[in-house]
């Protein structure tokens, strides 16, 4: 049995934002034109940023909008426009219909299991944020103390990604 929480202002906001995020996420996948997909992705990013705000993660919400909805999406749109993609040719009316139905069924089944599991679990109380510190300060503190090593390793991860992109893009195809 799924227990719904007592509905208050925050919950209503949560369900609205979650709904927007889900619907726009689905629309990203189902658009035929990549430009429209990219635009729906922006909507998705904003909705997720709202969810972060509801969870009192102001810094992450700001970063989500500045980096993802801002910088990365501009890059996406530039690349799509530069590539000048045309609409893909229609491959029959319902291509891969069998796989699609099976995929949706399996995804729905997984979702049901997840919902069932969540409804059974009772969460222990979350860790209290350090008193007297703003959200951004708290993040900075853990980044440079407890999470110093992962923080540095992330830079290696980015370097690997850059080198990889150069390897795949630099040599001209004959």
């Amino acid at each position, binding site marked *: 049995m799924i227990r719904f929480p007592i509905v208050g202002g925050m919950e209503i906001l949560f369900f609205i934002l979650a709904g927007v995020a889900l619907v726009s996420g689905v629309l990203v996948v189902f658009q035929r034109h990549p430009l429209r997909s990219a635009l729906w992705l922006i909507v998705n990013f904003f909705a997720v940023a709202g969810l972060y705000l509801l969870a009192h993660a102001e810094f992450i919400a700001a970063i989500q909008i500045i980096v993802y909805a801002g910088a990365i999406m501009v890059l996406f749109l530039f690349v799509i426009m530069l590539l000048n993609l045309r609409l893909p040719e229609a491959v029959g009316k319902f291509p891969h219909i069998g796989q699609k139905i099976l995929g949706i069924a399996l995804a729905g089944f997984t979702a049901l*299991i*997840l919902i*069932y*599991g*969540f409804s*059974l*679990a*009772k*969460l*222990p*109380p*979350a*860790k209290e944020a350090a008193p007297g*510190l703003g959200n951004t*300060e708290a993040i*900075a*503190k853990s980044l*440079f*103390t*407890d*999470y*110093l*090593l*992962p923080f540095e*390793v*992330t830079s*290696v*991860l980015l*370097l*690997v*990604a850059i*080198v*990889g992109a*150069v*390897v*795949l893009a630099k*040599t001209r*195809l*004959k």
Partner: protein
Amino acid sequence: MTLTIPSFTLSSIGPWLTLTGTAILILLVDALSPKGRKAYFPQLSLLGLGIALLQTFRLWNHTGTDFARMVYVDNFAFFFYAVFILGTALTVLISRHYLEDYGKNLGEYYALLLFATLGMMLLAAGAHLIMIFLGLEVMSIAVYVLAGLFREDAKSNEAALKYLVLGAFSSAFLLFGIAMLYGATGGSLYLDDMAARLAQAGALTQPLTLLALALFIVGFGFKVASVPFHMWTPDVYEGAPTSITAFMAVGVKAAAFAAFARVLFLAFPALKVDWVMILWVLAVATMTLGNVVAIAQTNIKRMLAYSSIAHAGYLLVALVAANQLGAVSLLYYLLAYTLMNLGAFGVVILVGRKKDSYLSIYDYSGLGFQHPALAAAMALFMFALAGIPPTAGFVGKFYIFSAAVQAGYIWLAIIGVMNSLVSVFYYLRITVLMYMKPPEAELGPVAFTPALTTVLLVTAVGVLLIGIFPGFLYNLAVNSVKIFPSL
């Protein structure tokens, strides 16, 4: 606000620093050297790997954690460091000639190999799930790119894209699992106190923990190529450059198993009943499918891909046993597998020269008469993969199945042995072709470069040596798995 940066010793991550430094040095040398003079990358990589191995030896027998409990400094990690370094060094040795054939002897190739090795080390030593995730990503991104190195080749493109899309998917599963554990433990992802916190929360968060466990099995199951998460393996192994196929079959699998074992043994001892049951089924399915489908393959790379799936099944048996011998056999078998599989791929590269034009198993017909030494080496590796004494493959399988029997999984051991018998068919078929069939076509001269000869010598001698005298390695492995209190 004052920040106190926690104290740390850089030497406890010395091998990581060396590999990162070497990779960056290679990139710089590549960028700054004039065109056409690009011969020193394999030597530089080997030098870096050698220094990292020395550092690993000097760290041996250290215990504890470092960097605010982010990284384990223990023999389990160091054993795997040595396996990864060995695997990468052999990959570097088999790469050069092969890449030059394609005009792709790039500095970036070696840099990415070293970065991938770094990622594997992060996986083996990560003491926090964030570290394990970062290790997985560093390793995977490097390998995605390496799989697609031959951009002109449609199959290489397909391999890279397939691996990327499915790999990203499996990473998402793993990350979702990590998020659930974060909730279930009340906000801690340190492996060393996770079991205690999960026990404390007890039944309340049990459903969440079970979901997390299931998602972990999906994520790691993908990386080790276990059924039913194996679909990508044959296509990716076939399409990727042969040297990278060898690297993936050996290094990526070993790293994923290292992290898998550590997470299961340290974080989920309370749920042992559950994961043993799931992995039992996965092990049987993986062994059986890998071995049965391998029989039907005529492309040697695809055959070795299915063989690698089957071997993931044997290694899962070691996890199911979940006792000390099981963990020991996991370590032993991964080292043995590194030697025999890289040896086999070395032969594949030697035979399949001229842009991979000799990849059918029938191209091995009559190899025994034309190149006796090469055929003898291949026969040895095939015997080892099939698990025939006195090779390392036999000892490894013996340990694994003994561990299963010791833990009371008699049927699992029987199924495993029967699977080994099935596998003898397709491994010995290569040997039969080499020695009992007339050559189909003239193979012509095989370019025995010093590097490739070294690889064949090292792997062949290694397979025999640790097969006949397993005691030393066994003791090392016993020493390495002492860190698991639950075994």
